C-alpha cells in the first residue's frame, strides 16, 4: 500500500529525514517510535501533504501513485488520513458542517454519491457511539474549546467517519489520561481491518499496550534504525532510546 524509499526531507534548510525507508501493507499496524526531534511528526506531515517540507531525495508510492505529487485533499480522497498531534481550532466552522463537507468532497472526488443530511447524521450517530463522544461536540465549532482529550478523540472520530485506507496517528496519545487513551485505542481497534493500514507515531510505549502493532520501528536522527515486532516497544520502554544506538553503533552512525 505504502512504499517509502530513501526519503530525505528538509525544513527551512535543515535536514530532518535522512533516508527513511518503510513499507506498509494493507491490514498492518506499524508503530513509529523515537525520541523528540527524530523526525516522527515530519514523516506524518509529509505523508499528509503539509507545505513547508522540502523533499530533496527519495520517493513515496501510495497504491502505486507518487504520493508526493498529490494535493492534500487528493491524498485524503485517496484514503490517506492524518490524526494531528495538535488538532487545529477553527472558530466559526461548525463541526458537523465541516465533517459532512469533507466527507462529501471526498466522495465526490471518488465519483461516489454525496450523503444527504439525514444519511450523514445517521452515520455520525453510529460513530459517536463507538467513540463515546458527547453528541453536543458536533454542534460546536471545530475543536474550539475542546479539552485536549476531546480534540484527540475528535480526530479519531473524524477518522471513523471518513474511513481512510491509510491512517497516520501523530502522537495521538500525548496529553491523554489513561481513560481517554483507552477510548482512543478502542476507537482505533474498532477500525482495524484487513484493507486498512495504520502508522502509529508515538513517543511512549503506553499506547501500544492498547493498540498492539504488527511492527515497531525506531526512528532516530531521520532514519529508521531498528525494526521489530511488538516486543521491541517493550524493550525500548525498559531500556530507553539510547539503548538502540548503543546496540547498533555502526548502523546508527551511517
Amino acid at each position, binding site marked *: 500500500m505504502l512504499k517509502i524509499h530513501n526519503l530525505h526531507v528538509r525544513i527551512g534548510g535543515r535536514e530532518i529525514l535522512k533516508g527513511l525507508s518503510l513499507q506498509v501493507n494493507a491490514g498492518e499496524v506499524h508503530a513509529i517510535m523515537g525520541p523528540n526531534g527524530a523526525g516522527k511528526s515530519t514523516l506524518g506531515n509529509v505523508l499528509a501533504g503539509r507545505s513547508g517540507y522540502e523533499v530533496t531525495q527519495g520517493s513515496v508510492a501510495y497504491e502505486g501513485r507518487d504520493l508526493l505529487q498529490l494535493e492534500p485533499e487528493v491524498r*485524503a480522497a485517496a484514503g490517506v488520513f492524518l490524526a494531528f498531534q495538535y488538532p487545529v481550532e*477553527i472558530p*466559526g466552522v461548525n463541526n458537523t458542517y465541516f465533517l459532512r463537507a469533507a466527507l462529501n468532497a471526498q466522495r465526490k472526488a471518488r465519483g461516489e454519491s454525496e450523503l444527504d443530511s439525514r444519511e450523514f447524521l445517521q452515520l455520525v450517530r453510529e460513530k459517536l457511539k463507538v467513540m463515546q463522544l458527547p453528541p453536543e461536540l458536533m454542534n460546536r465549532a471545530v475543536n474550539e474549546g475542546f479539552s485536549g482529550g476531546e480534540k484527540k478523540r475528535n480526530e479519531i472520530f473524524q477518522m471513523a467517519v471518513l474511513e481512510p485506507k491509510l491512517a497516520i496517528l501523530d502522537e495521538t496519545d500525548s496529553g491523554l489520561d489513561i481513560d481517554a487513551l483507552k477510548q482512543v485505542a478502542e476507537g482505533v481497534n474498532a477500525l482495524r481491518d484487513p484493507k486498512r493500514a495504520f502508522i502509529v507515531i508515538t513517543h511512549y510505549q503506553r499506547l501500544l499496550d492498547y493498540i498492539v502493532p504488527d511492527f515497531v520501528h525506531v526512528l532516530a536522527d531521520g532514519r529508521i534504525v531498528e525494526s521489530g515486532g511488538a516486543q521491541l516497544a517493550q524493550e525500548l520502554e525498559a531500556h530507553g532510546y539510547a539503548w538502540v544506538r548503543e546496540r547498533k553503533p555502526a548502523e546508527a552512525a551511517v
Partner: protein
Amino acid sequence: MSAVVAPFIESMRAAALPASGIAWLDAARREAMQTFLSAGLPNARHELWKYTALRALEQRGYAARDENASTRIVDGSAFALPGIDGPQLVLVNGVFRADLSRLNDLPQGLSVQPLSRALAENPEPLRFLLSRRVQESRDAFVSLNAALAADGALVRVASGAEIEKPLHIVHLGAPADSIVAWHARSFIELGEGARLHIVEHDAAAGEHAHFANLACEYMLQKNARLDLLTLQDASAGATLLRHGEFHLHEDAQLALHALELGGALARHEIRIALDGDRSRVDTRGAYALRSRQHADTELLIEHRGRDTTSDSLWRGVADGRARGVFHGAITVRQGADGADAQLSNKNLLLSEGAEIDTRPALEIHVDEVKAAHGATVGQLDERALFYLRSRGLPAEAARMLLVRAFCAVALSGIEPNELHEHCDALLLAHLPREDET
C-alpha cells in the same frame, strides 16, 4: 478658484440646481453649492481622507442626472431580497419610482414618502431640515448632496408604533445613456418608543460606472429602537458615497449591520451621537473586496450621555489588488460618565497585492469609563487551511469556509433568517475564486 478646474468639480458646477420654486430651498441649495465649490474635494492631507485618494474621481466628469430615470425599464429582480416583502421605496438613479415601490397600505404609525413628493406637496415642515447649514460643512460631499439632491426617502414612525415588517429602501443604479451622477437625501425619524427595521439597499442593474452620493439622517427619540441593515451591492463600476448621521436620545437603541460588497470606490461614513443617557448602539459590519475595489469605512461614535454603550465588531477581507480602509473612532465626551465602548476590527488579506489600513482610535474625556479597542490585519491561518484540506476539502472550498467563518460574527443578528442566509451567500459569491488575479 484657480483657472484650471477639475472635470469633476466642473461637471458638478455645471449641473443646474434642482428648481423647486421654493425660495428658502433654492437659497439653501445655492449656498451648499457655493460651500462645495470653495472647498473642493478633500485630498490626502485631510485626516479623514488619508487613505482614499480622489484624484481619479476628480478627473472624471458626470452627467448631472439621468433624464430618463423615471421611465427607465428596470428588472425588479435586481433588488428583490428574500424575506423582505413589506413596504418598499425604490429610487432608480436617484429618482423615485412609484411603479416599483410598495407604499400603499402602510402599517399604522409608519409614514414613508419620497422627498420629491413631500417638497411638491407640502415643503414647509422640511424647512428646518433642509435649510439649516450643513452640519459638517467641511465634508464636500455632504455639501454637494445638499445642493443637488432632489429626491430621497422621508420616513417617520409615530410614537409607540412598532412596525413589524422591514422597510426596504432601494437605491438602484441602472445603466443610463451617459455616465450619470445622482444625489439622494433621506430623513428617518422614530418617535418615542417606536420600533422600525430598515434595509437600505444599494443595488445594481449592470456593472456600469456612475456616481452616487447618499446622505441620510436618523433621529431616534427616547426609547426608540432601529434595526438597520445597509446592504451595499452597487455596480462594479460605481463610485458610491454614503453618509449617515445618527442621533440617539435617552434609552434609544440602534442595531446597525453594514455589508460592503460592490462598487469600484465606496466610502461609508457612519456618525453616531449617543446623546441621550443609556442610549446604545451595536454595529456589525463586513467588507469583502476583490480585484481593484477600494472601500473606506469611517465609523465615528460619540458618547455624550451618561451610561451609554457602543459595541462594534467589523471584519474585512481583501483579495486581488483591493484596498480596504477602516477608521473607527470613539470619543467619550465630558459628562458621558459610565460609558462602555468596545470596538474590534479584524481583517484578512487573501493576496499579496491586497491592502487594508485600519485605524482604531479612542478619545476619552471622562474618568469613569470602560473602553477597549483593537484591530488586526492578518492572513488565512495556514494550519487551519491544511487541516481542512487534509480532511478532503479542496483548497478553494477550505479558503471559503475559513473566510466565511471569519465574517460570520459581523453577519450574526441579521433578521429575518432568509435575509441572513442571503447576505452570507452574497458575501461568499462576492469573494473571488483562487485563480482570479
